[in-house]
């Protein structure tokens, strides 16, 4: 009893701390970049814009261009990083639980290769280019590819009886191979150097496409997903015990497994369509959080989501400043930061997929 209420206190304190760190990081995130803007002025602009002009005065700024840079370019981008991190960490955590496999990540149902095929198709065959229409076309095709792949994986693992985790993972791998083959075929046949560069860049993930117009959709999906999954913490916990034990505790997993996979796939599909393939976040963040707080979803899921968000904001910041003239694809950064973090938890905490 005491132990459990202490756990709860720690949990709320961690949430508070993470929220504070995320707000601070957002502030830092909007100051860094090609044009350096003082932290105090960044916060001044954000406070003014967020309050609808009630707080602060924009006339005291040292440059008029600052408002545009921060409000039109950097702030949407930092918000996209936050939402992407939240969504990927949440989808990864849910996928790991749903397929009862610690190796699962948001892309396990073939979503990555499906989205890549969609994107490759768009870039190489008809929608390549820089106009806004072409960009929307790319997101659309990537989302379509992702959802098609996830749907086919679910269908395939349903053949010959109930869906189980091994069938899901295997179906995901098989369709991954198939879709990757299609993508490679298109790339090989098209023989278009500029297109190949675009595809490669897309596959490494980028938040550069952030704008106010794409945020509402992603925000709605991520927040709806979050609200849905926090109500499911008990069933998610039971899911970890396996099918037979779950039935004896009154839960038929077959239905919930499909439901969660569909929700997580839509979530991942939307994110991938807008930010490309950002690897490692969905795999590693849940493990790191589980290594610290254990597998109880009441704590684990929410903390994963907050940590994913913080992690992504910092990956984005570093991707913009680590090289002086060019921006690094964010997928490279997430692995560069994530891997050592994971190794630390693995070695220091003696983590064995639990806590």
């Amino acid at each position, binding site marked *: *009893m005491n*132990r*459990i209420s202490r756990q709860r206190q720690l949990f709320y304190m961690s949430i508070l701390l993470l929220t504070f760190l995320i707000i601070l990081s957002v502030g830092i995130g909007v100051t860094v970049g090609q044009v350096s803007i003082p932290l105090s002025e960044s916060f001044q602009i954000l406070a003014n814009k967020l309050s609808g002009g009630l707080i602060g005065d924009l006339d005291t700024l040292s440059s008029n261009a600052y408002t545009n840079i921060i409000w039109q370019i950097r702030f949407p981008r930092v918000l996209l990083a936050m939402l992407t991190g939240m969504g990927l960490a949440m989808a990864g955590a849910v996928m*790991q*639980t749903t397929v*009862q*496999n*610690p190796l699962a990540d948001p892309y396990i149902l073939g979503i990555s290769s499906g989205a890549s095929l969609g994107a490759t198709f768009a870039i190489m065959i008809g929608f390549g280019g820089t106009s806004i229409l072409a960009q929307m076309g790319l997101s659309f095709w990537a989302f379509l590819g992702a959802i098609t792949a996830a749907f086919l994986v679910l269908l395939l693992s349903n053949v010959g009886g109930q869906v189980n985790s091994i069938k899901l993972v295997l179906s995901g791998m098989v369709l991954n191979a198939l879709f990757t083959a299609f993508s490679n075929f298109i790339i090989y046949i098209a023989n278009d150097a500029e297109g190949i560069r675009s595809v490669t860049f897309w596959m490494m993930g980028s938040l550069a496409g952030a704008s106010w117009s794409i945020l509402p959709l992603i925000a709605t999906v991520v927040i709806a997903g979050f609200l849905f999954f926090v*109500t499911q913490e*008990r069933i998610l*916990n*039971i899911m*970890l*015990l*396996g*099918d*037979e*034990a779950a*039935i*004896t*505790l*009154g*839960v*038929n997993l077959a239905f919930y497994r499909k439901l969660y996979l569909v929700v997580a796939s839509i979530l991942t599909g939307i994110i991938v369509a807008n930010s490309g393939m950002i690897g490692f976040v969905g795999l590693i963040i849940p493990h790191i959080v*589980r290594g610290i707080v*254990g*597998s*109880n979803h009441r704590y684990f899921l929410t903390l994963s989501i907050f940590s994913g968000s913080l992690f992504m904001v910092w990956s984005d910041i570093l991707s913009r400043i680590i090289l002086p003239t060019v921006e690094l694809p964010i997928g490279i950064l997430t692995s560069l930061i994530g891997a050592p973090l994971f190794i630390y938890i693995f070695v220091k905490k003696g983590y*064995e*997929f*639990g*806590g």
Partner: protein
Amino acid sequence: MNLSVDNLSVSIASKKIIEDISLHVDQNQFVGLIGPNGCGKSTLLKSVSKILEPDAGMITLNGNNVQQLSNKELAKKLGVVGQFNKVNFDFSVRQMLLLGRSPHKGLMERDNAKDYEIVDKVIKQMDLGKLADRSFLSLSGGEKQRVILGRTLVQQPQFLVLDEPTNHLDIKHQLSILKTVHALPISVLAALHDLNLATRFTDYLYAMKDGVIIKQGTPDEVLTEAVIRELYEVECRVYTNPILGIKNIEFL
């Protein structure tokens, strides 16, 4: 709570595992199921717990058809300790026990003081005090088995299904678990391997071979040299143990 199984047949992957089995467990009776490996004991128990769906026949719990109860309703009445409890992700023992409250909880309902109280009581009853704050994955097979039985007791069932509950257990805990279960004022259906424990703790026995029941009755009636020869193809002598005054079996 009583259980009736009438003319039950079950197949797995279109192979008939049990055929036309009927059995009955009375209010507060401890009924044992014995038989060689692969005779269909687990299949029968899984059908009773609604993990497997029967081809034919009916299972009723206090007159209610088990197939028509929702999983949750059934879990409030029936607790199950299965044979395999493989878990890939870790929980503390206390969290594991708390999950036993799930059938009694609504979707958003949190564990409350009463749930913690029930868990604490089971921890005492099952001698789990030393394990309570350890991680489940770090436990030995026997310790895990005890925690799972504990979780089942936290469910507060009126009927208990046990599939070889003394597997992996040392002698102390074999005896203490069977004594605990025996003392509970609930009905029990258990598959047992140890025939001497079966004579000591059960009220009634069913002997199964190749998916059918070949003998039923009190332990004294069922555990004869002839029946054991037919079941397990081994020779034995049955004698009255002078210390406890009950039948014992010595294999030759």
